[in-house]
């Protein structure tokens, strides 16, 4: 039996590491609930990254590894955001791993 998280009264299945089982079920509220579990308050800066990841997945069908994410963020959102210090300050459990989880994506390929 998969684990579940509850968002706005609805149950969503997640895998043993907390990643959403079915990425098509994702709603923004899921990110908020997952963030709360990690003791994080989501800001616009977090959402920039979460939305970026969803777009990246939509285009390439893959959740990028952290250094690929860093590079791609720098290109899209500006150099001052495309560095791991900034991304780790937003997502202390690892920008790719944690942000992908909030975004409803699978665990990034190339992350151990």
């Amino acid at each position: 039996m998969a684990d579940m998280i509850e968002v706005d009264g609805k149950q969503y299945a997640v895998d043993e590491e907390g990643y959403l089982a079915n990425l098509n079920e994702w709603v923004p509220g899921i990110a908020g609930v997952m963030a709360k579990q990690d003791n994080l308050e989501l800001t616009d800066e977090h959402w920039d990254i979460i939305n970026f990841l969803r777009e990246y997945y939509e285009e390439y069908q893959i959740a990028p590894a952290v250094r690929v994410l860093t590079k791609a963020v720098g290109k899209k959102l500006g150099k001052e955001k495309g560095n791991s210090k900034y991304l780790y300050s937003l997502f202390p459990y690892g920008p790719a791993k944690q942000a992908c989880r909030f975004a409803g994506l699978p665990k990034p390929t190339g992350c151990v």
Partner: protein
Amino acid sequence: MSEVVKKFMYLNRKAPYGTIYAWESLEVVLVGAAFDQDVSVMFVDDGVYQLTKAQDTKEIGMKNFSPTYRTLGDYEIKKVYVDRDSLAARGLTQDDLVAIAWEDMETEEEVDNIVEVIDSARVSALMNESAAIFSF
């Protein structure tokens, strides 16, 4: 890096769907890219179909992972080769294949398409140069 950089080749011979080889290979390439080796990705035989444009997997109920090949450049892989004879034998040309862009963020050097169609002599030479070949 103090370690010696080795030449690794990932050799893809099989059609993208029907077996798990193509997807497994792509995953290994992307995971392995973190280790800063000199990596090349080679497509021969039915493997050339992996890079074809406009794949549609709806009817077979598989995820269409062909867009993922376009991230190889993001993963700092710069050498992607396709065997010309394999393409020709299947009535394909480079125009039927996806383009993979590559860019160095520091130097801002850009390559629009790193996919290179090469003849069989070059395929053999590149294989001979490789310290290890991972065949899928």
